[in-house]
């Protein structure tokens, strides 16, 4: 696969749209567990990214630059919990694709693994804490194992998104141990984690984008 900088920009624009559409759903999840703003935060952040993408980054060809700028723009627009988390993921991902204008299968796999690990390090969350990491950690693990075996990004990522989805769904029954919802104890059970949900949207949107081009 040769995934270009232009396509990366296009992917991020898709995320902008998805987050806008899912804003209310993500807020609703966060009202059950936290302060009800997760959708608003994602929307504010990705709208700021959208401006950046259609202006300064429009003709950018360095995938590393694109990803890190997207991360910083998101961070500076939102702060919040997810600002540092997603920004760190995007910047860590940026590092492994720095200077590249086209990404091959192995670049893409490394990008997403770095993304997931970056977020995990920043937030110091473990699987089972009811956070973004419950989506990203199993997804990254599946991606790494499948890609090591097959060398094919698309099929490996396809499996990874499935693991991410399972991870996301698993958060419903978890007792939260990090972030605002951790104070709920038993009462945090029964609601799906908003961050785990938006993280899944990030992954599944990428899958859609790469699937479409391979058709």
């Amino acid at each position, binding site marked *: 696969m040769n995934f270009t900088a232009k396509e990366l920009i296009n992917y991020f624009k898709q995320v902008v749209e998805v987050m806008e559409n899912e804003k209310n759903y993500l807020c609703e999840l966060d009202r059950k567990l936290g302060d009800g703003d997760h959708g*608003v935060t994602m929307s504010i952040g990705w709208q700021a990214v959208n401006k950046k993408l259609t202006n300064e980054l429009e003709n950018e060809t360095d995938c590393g630059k694109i990803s890190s700028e997207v991360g910083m723009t998101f961070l500076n627009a939102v*702060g919040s*919990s997810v600002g540092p988390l997603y920004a760190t993921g995007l910047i860590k991902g940026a590092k492994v694709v720095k200077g590249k204008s086209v990404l091959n299968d192995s670049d893409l796999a490394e990008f997403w693994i770095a993304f997931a690990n970056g977020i995990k390090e920043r937030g110091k969350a473990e699987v089972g804490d009811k956070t973004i990491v419950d989506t990203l950690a199993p997804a990254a693990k599946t991606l790494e194992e499948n890609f090591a075996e097959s060398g094919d990004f698309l099929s490996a990522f396809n499996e990874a998104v499935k693991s991410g989805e399972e991870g996301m769904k698993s958060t419903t029954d978890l007792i939260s141990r990090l972030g605002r919802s951790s*104070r*709920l104890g038993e009462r945090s059970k029964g609601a799906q984690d908003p961050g785990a949900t938006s993280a899944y949207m990030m992954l599944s949107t990428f899958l859609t984008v790469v699937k479409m081009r391979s058709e």
Partner: protein
Amino acid sequence: MKKLINSPENVVEEMIEGYVKAHPSHVRRLAENDRALVTAKETAEGKVGILIGGGSGHEPAFMGYVGDGMADGVAVGNIFASPPPAPILEVTKAVNKGAGVLYLYGNYAGDVMNFGMASDLADMEDIQVEMVLASDDVASAPKAEKEKRRGIAGEFFVYKTAGAAADFGYNLEDVANIAKKTNENTRSMGVGLSPCSLPQTGEPSFELGENEMEVGLGHHGEPGLRKAPIDTADNVADELLNSILLDIELNEGDDVAVLVNGLGSTPRMELYIMFRRVEQVLKEKGINIYRSYVGDYITSLEMGGASITLTKLDDEMKKMIDHPVDCPMFVQK
């Protein structure tokens, strides 16, 4: 809920614009970042800089507490969201007078990460930074895990004492120690009666039955310990106070500062009725109220409810509590 706003996207920006226009002799905005405000007065060379911050929607906190005797600067986040590192860093640079900067903020995942990143960046610019996190809400974690507790209205006392200590010329470590000591001696607990709503969603932040209250509510509408039928002011005050008194050792003859804080839409009348009971109970126990604060000090937009905060005071802290303050939203003589 109806709001007097122009568009939900611009509320924070427009609030800040109004704020700096209303109090030009008190606060100014840094050219480097829209969300970075500092005191308009010249602060003394060698004074420890006090930096506060957090999400918007808690006014007077946090931006209302910039001024003589409190904070030198504030980083302003979106509604109920930590500010990102950039404005924190700009404020850090502006308020550093060679003696370093103390970050004071509430213990929330977002704030921890953003202020943490900012302090790493400040470190790269050779500015010494210390951080003290408020964690006063007894309802948010068991006593054994106090470091996990969130910061609510008790943060006010942390600003108050640290701001005074910096004014008195304490060095960074000592100012940080006063802030830590204040946090360690501060306990709060709140009750929610009615939700607020984010301008962008218009949805109530939580749901309660017509005769229900949320005991132990967090000040972003985070669910508390339990829902319960609404009770008399005296019984509610008793429950909050009991939780606090079980958590901190207070003996006959001890001095405390008391804050009865309104969450936004609760009239002062009700806060004073709550205070009345607090005073009765403390008096019975022989605990002396050194100073009282009753009003909206840290709010959650138009949320209904109140919290009670006690801070146990030693002589040094009393001096800090008594120190005068001149901020746009809080003045003490």
